[in-house]
Each structure stands twice: as structure tokens, then as C-alpha cells.
């Protein structure tokens, strides 16, 4: 096969349960030092992928390579991989330092070095004050640090995290997320993390893999995923509010760019080239910040359904004449009320187009 790359590599991996095929033929490369996030709704196969890497499940076909070693046939403990579990899975009958030491002892690390490594890790994670306590005496945030410490103390080639922030309350989650970002930069460890929270993915990842129904939808940087979603699913899954999607008739414009005629008759001029696009029924997608609300002006118009005021910005849900809904973002606290009639302007230059199968077409990237 190919050259022995550094980092993690999946080669044609197959995994099935009973008759359900989870992965048919998955190939994937993750470079050293990357913070790679697998994003998707629950039950889409993310955790299975993590367990395959960890060796908690066996692949049914294909290979997994880590830093030039084939690891898919190795036992879980021998792969140089550590994992932070969703429920932490700390050993409740051991103190924090015993939790950290257990794996090192099994790896045959000398006692002196174990003590030194625990001291180092405890310092980095600020868990020194409770090294002699049992996990049940710690708060959720402290337990989370200990779980991270138990993984880091082994100095793994690869750190896996399964929804590590999901059992924290929102305020703590935000703080821990920032700490995690700093930590991963300073450690320059290779990390694969699973989450269903797209904000976590966007803020932490160097690259994101979006999964849905056991199928990889897109792999890319957070910016690529957000700006150039590969398909309708990604477009609507990523972002603070789902992308607005409206049906319409695609027509080739005279300048070679696509024009969409919406249900109400309004025409939106996009920046997507029409080369090779067939005319017909398409969908147009626009982020909330690219929908402008004006006084009713005879163009596309609708009635305000309700307004979500978040403080720094507001999301105005507008029902259009044909019954479809769009969400417009407004800076600050919107003065609009439910029932207000508004004109709707769509910023076609920022629009994405989706064909019948959901595949996305974008305006060319600015040079």
C-alpha cells in the first residue's frame, strides 16, 4: 500500500453489526497534531468510529494505521491510544492519583516516573488539590479534568474524546471548551473528538468530519464546512440557526450565473455559475445574516411569525406568502413584533444552490 504516513489513517475500513453495515468502505487521514472533530447527530456512527480506533471494537475489514504502525489487530491497551469517555468511567474505588497510576503501572512504567508524570499532569490540569480524593467527592468539572488527566498521563500518540463536555452544565461547558482549546494547542497532541454540538466542533477543530446515517458527509476546516457545505444536510446542521432553504425554478442568466425564481414570483440572482447545471426545480440556501428585512416594497414579502431576541442579535422568523419560512438575523434587539408585515430581500451573492439529491453548488471562491 501507500507510504507510511505519520498520523492516523483509515484504509477501506468496514464495520457491521449483525446485518447493519456501519461503515462500508471508509478511508481517512488525520495528520499529527490535528484536532479532528467528528460531528453528527446521535446514532450516526461517530462513537463506533472512536471505538474502532481505540480497539474496543474490531474492524470487519480494512486497516487502521497510526504513525506508521498497523494497529487494527492490536489489543486496546497496546495501541498508544488514550480515551476520555462520555461518562468519564473513572474508577470509583480509587483515588484520583490511583486512577492516573493504574494504566501506567500496567504499562510497566517505573514507580518514580509514575509519580513524576502524575505530578506534571496534575499541575497542567490543576487537579493537584484533590489527588487523594475519590472521584465521587469531586464536582462534574473536576471529574472531567481527572478523566482528561488519566488519558494525558499516558502520553498517548493519539487522544480520543467521546462527547467530553456533554455532561457539564452550560456555563462550565463554555469555560472547559476554552480551556480544552488552549490545552490542545500547548500540548500539540493529535486529538480525535466526537460531538453532536456544532459550536464545540467549530471552535475546537482544525478539521471537522460531518457524519449522518453512518455516511461521511464532508471533511474540511470549520470555515469550509460553514462557508461551503457539501450538501443540504451539512448546510442545515452547521450554524447557529439552520440555513434557510427555499424551493425555486433555476434558470441560466445571461451572464452565466444562475437565477432562481421563487414560489411568489420573486427572482434571486445568485453568484453560482450555471455551467453544466440543468434548469428545473432546485433549492436555494441562505444564512440568516444574508436575509434582509425592509418595509413592504412590492417585492418578496411576508409576516413576522415570532422573534427570538438573544441580546447581541435577534432572529426574526418570517412566514412568506407561499407558507414557507425564512429566518433573518438582525443586529441588537429587533423592534419588530409578531404580525408585522415586512419586505424580504435575499442577498443572492451569498446564496448556495442544492440539486434534487441535495448536493451543493457554490459561488466560486474569491481569488
Amino acid at each position, binding site marked *: 500500500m501507500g507510504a507510511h504516513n505519520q498520523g492516523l489513517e483509515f484504509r477501506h475500513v468496514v464495520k457491521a453489526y449483525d446485518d447493519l453495515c456501519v461503515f462500508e468502505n471508509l478511508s481517512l487521514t488525520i495528520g499529527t497534531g490535528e484536532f479532528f472533530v467528528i460531528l453528527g447527530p446521535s446514532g450516526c456512527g461517530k462513537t463506533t468510529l472512536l*471505538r474502532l480506533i481505540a480497539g474496543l471494537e474490531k474492524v470487519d475489514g480494512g486497516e487502521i494505521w497510526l504513525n506508521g504502525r498497523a494497529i487494527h489487530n492490536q489489543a486496546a*491497551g*497496546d495501541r498508544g491510544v*488514550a*480515551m476520555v*469517555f462520555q461518562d*468519564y*468511567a473513572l474508577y470509583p474505588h480509587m483515588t484520583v492519583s490511583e486512577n492516573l497510576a*493504574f*494504566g501506567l503501572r500496567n504499562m510497566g512504567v517505573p514507580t518514580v516516573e509514575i509519580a513524576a508524570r502524575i505530578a506534571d499532569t496534575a499541575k497542567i490540569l490543576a487537579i493537584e488539590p484533590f489527588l487523594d480524593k475519590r472521584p465521587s467527592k469531586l464536582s462534574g468539572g473536576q471529574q472531567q479534568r481527572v478523566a482528561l488527566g488519566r488519558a494525558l498521563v499516558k502520553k498517548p500518540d493519539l487522544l480520543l474524546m467521546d462527547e467530553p463536555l456533554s455532561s457539564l452544565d452550560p456555563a462550565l461547558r463554555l469555560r472547559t471548551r476554552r480551556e480544552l482549546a488552549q490545552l490542545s494547542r500547548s500540548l500539540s497532541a493529535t486529538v480525535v473528538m466526537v460531538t453532536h454540538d456544532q459550536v464545540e466542533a467549530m471552535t475546537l477543530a482544525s478539521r471537522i468530519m460531518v457524519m449522518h446515517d453512518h455516511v461521511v458527509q464532508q471533511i474540511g476546516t470549520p470555515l469550509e464546512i460553514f462557508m461551503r457545505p457539501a450538501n443540504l444536510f451539512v448546510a442545515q446542521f452547521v450554524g447557529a440557526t439552520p440555513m434557510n432553504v427555499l424551493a425555486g425554478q433555476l434558470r441560466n442568466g445571461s451572464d452565466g450565473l444562475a437565477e432562481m425564481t421563487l414560489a411568489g414570483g420573486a427572482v434571486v440572482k445568485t453568484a453560482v455559475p450555471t455551467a453544466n447545471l440543468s434548469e428545473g426545480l432546485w433549492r436555494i440556501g441562505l444564512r440568516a445574516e444574508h436575509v434582509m428585512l425592509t418595509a413592504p416594497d412590492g417585492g418578496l414579502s411576508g409576516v413576522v411569525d415570532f422573534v427570538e431576541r438573544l441580546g447581541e442579535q435577534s432572529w426574526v422568523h418570517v412566514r412568506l406568502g407561499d407558507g414557507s419560512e425564512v429566518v433573518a438575523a438582525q443586529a441588537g434587539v429587533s423592534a419588530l413584533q409578531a404580525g408585522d408585515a415586512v419586505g424580504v430581500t435575499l442577498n443572492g451573492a451569498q446564496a448556495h444552490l442544492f440539486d434534487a439529491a441535495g448536493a451543493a453548488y457554490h459561488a466560486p471562491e474569491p481569488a
Partner: protein
Amino acid sequence: MSQARGREVWQWLRYAFCAVMLVLILLPLVWTVFLSLRSNIDLMRQAPLSLFGPYTLGNYGELLKNQTLFRWFFNSMIVSGFSVAGVLVLSSLAGYAFGRLHFPFRNWLYVFVLMGLAIPDQSVILTRHHIFSTLHWHNTYLALILPGLSAPLGVFLMTETFRAIPKGMEDAARLDRASPLMVFWKILLPQTLPAQASLGIYTFLLSWNDYWWPLISATRPDMFTLTEGMAAAQTNYAEVTGMGVLMAEAVLAGLPVLIIYIAFQKHIVSAITGMVKL
């Protein structure tokens, strides 16, 4: 106003009920201790006993000279001790298998085991007696211990305990390079210790107090357990020892279980409430 009055009446009813129950429950115990402190001559007289004595520890002194009693006590310790050890080992292993591992027909086997909870010891006694007869094992410790190990209750309690341990525990341990045996011995088993304590004390009391099986299996007085021996003593106490001594025996026989009960009350309660989950 009337609601407050109603509450007051309830309160008094509660106190009265508690007081009556307290007297009814304690009086027999106090009476036994009272009799055990009176001389046999005192007890043989028909006249009512005076509350003001004379009191004596003579009956207890008499007991200390009684070799047979010590032998029975020793037998009970052996039988109860090994019953506890046996039940804990068998139940932990089976509980681990049923609660944590996978094998063919696991759930069917578990249901099959739980059905045993409905089989009373009394209804299997004839054939059980026959099994030990053909082996010539009656009047041995083994015969006194083994039947207690066949009860499924411990397996049920331990299976539920193992099941309650979070799922990721084995995974975490495997990533920490623990072998399957280490996972059981160092990770899972220590987490079941509170349940082991409850089950152990419960088993001890059950075995210590068992009268039915020793009565049938141990027919030689030197193999009697204390519970069985106390039965033999009370049917012919008048000729042999006298009532005062018998009462002192009852106090001494009750004392170990009462001490264990007081020391481990919490565990006994949790063992009992654990059974309800069935």
C-alpha cells in the same frame, strides 16, 4: 384551627402507638434476661418473683463450664463462616457472568436461576436428605454448608450490583492495559464491596439461625449447630440444667446475632431493600 387540633390528635396517637409497641417488643426480651439472672431455687418456687432480687450470675457461670455449648458455638461459626464465603464467591462469579458478560442463552439461564427463588427448602427436603445419605455425608460440616449455597438470592443481588456499574468501566480498564482477569479483580469486584457486605451479613444470619436443615442432617449431638442444640436443650431442660441456665443460654445464643445486627444494621437493611427490586 381544627386542622391544627387534628394534627395534635394524630401526634398523640402516634406516641401512644409507639409506646405500646415498644413495651410489647421489649418486654419478652427483658423478661428473659430477668429470669436468667435468678437462681434455679428461686425459679422452682411457685411464688411470684420479686423484682428486687436476689440476682445472681450463677447461671452464666454454669454455662461456661458446659463443653457441649462451646462445641455447638464452634460448629455454628464454622458452618456460618464457610456459608458466607461460599455464597460470596459463587454469587460474585455468577453475578459477574450474568450482569457483565455475554454467552449463549445467558438471559434464559438467568430466568431459570431466578425461578429457584420460588422453591421452598421444605419441599425438596426428602430428596436432598437422600443425596447426602447415599454419600454418607450427614453429620459433616460439608453437609451443613452445601445446601445453603444453592439459593439463588445471592446471584440475583450480585447480578443487579454488577449490572449497575457504569458501562464504560471495562473499556477504560482495557485501554489501561488491564487483562480480563484484572478487570474483574481490580476494577469491578472492588466496586461491589458494599453489596458483598450486605449479602455476607444476611447470609451469616440466615445460616446461623437455620434450624430446619441441621435438624435433619446433623443427628449426632457433637455436630449440632448452636441453633439446633438450643432446641434439644429446651425440650429437656428441666431434667438437665434448670430453667435459669436455659434462659442464660438463650441470652448468650441471641447475643452474637444482636451484636452483628447492631454493628451492621445499615448493611442488613440494604440487603433487604435490595431484594425488593425483583
